[in-house]
């Protein structure tokens, strides 16, 4: 699907362009030459077995300093992403939905939400929202995501269930309206309702000027959010690119058949 529009997009500059990215942690290499493009308007699924480097890629793109980068470039909307701090990346419209959202007792969720939104608005030269405008905005989003108002006064993710944490990530994403949202296994550990809520959240935000990078183990999420392209990360590099059929084949056959594929790009499903 969308082959023609993809072709048209390829002629454009990608929103995110990763070239030859090598990264590791504690002296251990994890990413061994990642090349990938994400174009505005696209939903790209990134699949791969445990330990293939999916979360490392997400964290490196968001600016986590614990990882060391040894080679490669990343352009985000035409600027050098790797020279930006995590704060700048966020304010420029890169959003990471964490695989394990952090519990921060004592920092009220409403404060995080409001501070994050207003920091972004200041960065964009917009006026900050006052308390009433902010509350109207956030309560509308809470309703859409099926979250209770009491979420606002609780500590960030404090005592939230797994599903609540993931919904809270979706709430932040919906509030911040990023240009690129990276969802790191947002589907893991969710029941059917929560999965649907996450999918609805993403689908509602799909727009020609916004892109999603969905990191997932499973085909299940991709039944609710149909990706434009599917990439497979293995041993720290992209080894296959395809359409939704690629995800289905992985669901049926696993990753073993890809272990043999030595070329880094273009394996047909």
């Amino acid at each position: 699907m969308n082959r023609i529009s993809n072709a048209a997009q390829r002629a454009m500059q990608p929103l995110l362009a990763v070239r030859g990215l090598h990264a590791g942690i504690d002296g251990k290499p994890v990413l061994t030459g990642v090349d990938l493009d994400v174009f505005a308007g696209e939903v790209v699924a990134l699949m791969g077995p445990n330990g293939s480097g999916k979360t490392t890629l997400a964290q490196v793109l968001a600016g986590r300093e614990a990882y060391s980068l040894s080679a490669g470039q990343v352009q985000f909307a035409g600027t050098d992403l790797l020279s930006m701090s995590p704060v700048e990346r966020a304010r420029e419209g890169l959003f990471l939905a964490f695989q394990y959202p952090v519990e921060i007792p004592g920092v009220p969720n409403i404060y995080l939400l409001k501070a994050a939104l207003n920091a972004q608005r200041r960065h964009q030269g917009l006026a900050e929202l006052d308390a009433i405008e902010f509350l109207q905005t956030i309560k509308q989003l809470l309703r859409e995501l099926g979250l209770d108002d009491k979420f606002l006064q609780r500590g960030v993710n404090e005592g939230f269930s797994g599903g609540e944490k993931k919904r809270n990530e979706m709430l932040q994403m919906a509030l911040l309206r990023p240009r690129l949202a990276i969802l790191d296994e947002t589907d893991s550990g969710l029941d059917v309702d929560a999965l649907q809520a996450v999918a609805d959240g993403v689908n509602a935000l799909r727009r020609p000027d916004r892109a999603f990078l969905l990191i997932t183990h499973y085909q299940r999420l991709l039944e609710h959010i149909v990706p434009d392209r599917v990439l497979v990360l293995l041993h720290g590099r992209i080894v296959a690119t395809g359409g939704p059929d690629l995800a289905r084949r992985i669901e049926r056959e696993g990753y073993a058949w890809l272990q043999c594929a030595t070329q880094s790009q273009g394996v047909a499903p």
Partner: protein
Amino acid sequence: MTAVQDWLEHALTQVPDEPQAVQAQRRSAAQTLRSRGLPTRHDEDWKYTSLKGLDVLPRADSVSPARVSADDLNALGAIDHPDCARVVFVDGRYAPGLSRLHGLPQGARLRCWSARLTPDLAHEVLAAAADADAVDAVNRLFAADGLDLELAAGVRIAQPLLVVTLQTNAGGSHLRHRITLGAGARIQLVEQHLALAATPGYVVTESTRMDLGVHAALHHVRLQTEAETASHVSQLHVVQAERSQFDAQLLALGAALSRQEWHVDQRAAGCSAEVRAASLLHGQQHGDVHLRIAHRQPHGHSRTHVRGVFDDAARGVFTGRVDVLPGADKTDAAMINRNVLLSMAAEVDTRPQLQIDADDVQCSHGAAVGRLDDDALFYLTARGIAADEARALLLRAFIVPALPDIGWAPLTRQIAALLAARGMPTPDVTEPR
């Protein structure tokens, strides 16, 4: 002759013409100090805190106090409220012009003793207790004033009693307080320690004896905001009668060297004690929190919650000892000390200790020393919140559970202002109606 003795002999030659009864106590204190000397690092209780700095400082009344007006006090942020009685001490002397003793109910007797004006009372207050140490002797030697508060049975004071201690010069403040609560009496005390800006090095010793009657309740809050040149040692001894409640809270921000001691003696059944302390230190500051709780009878209860944040080369010390003595069955005691170190040069020594010699008790103790949570920091910055703000948010969230809180808005505001001045503003989370 050691430096301490040198200092002591010098101080003793300056003993002012005090009444005989007072001089007798001074001599007895000097005798104690001569024979014991100030504690050193060889004393287990002083292993991590040195009092060397105390040696060279002049005694309180060798320097004349500055004139201080009520406006000066306000400008320094001294806590005040028109509904509350407030006692102010300047350079270790009662300052009647700045104090307000009205508004106390029948059965409440609030007075200040004075070495010169009330020698008999002074003799009583300056007497040594059986458990007194050399630091107490320093206090007995120099204390010239203090608070003597007595509440008759059943007397309850609705508004907190405010005690402000201000230092204006390089001398010292040595105050000695006595607080006695009759059966069922209740009071909240908020004590604040302040200094004029740029006050050079000075010494504060404070000794407070509290006696809680049956079912009495005392909440004691201390805001230790001394100048960062100060040495501040405060000892608070509490004796609890049956079902009495003692609640102590500390926020320690100031002083080059500070030590807060609580000695809680639960002599009867069903007593409750809660101690909360928060220290936020930086630079070369050294802050010692020292606590002893003795549960002697059944159904005792204690909670200790001490937290510290140490930046630069600051050093924190925590010693918490809970003794559950024979016969104190069904004691319920919990003690936790948590610390965050913000720099490689900061240091904490923590000693939570529990000694149980009774049956069927529920006791726990623990300590933790760590850094700010990197995952939480990254999470906040990945949402576009500036790194400095994220750090301040996390520090504030860490310290809040150990902050003083007696449900009194002026104190809450005061603490919020103190934290804001330390780069930790209160997040605005109010929802408009």
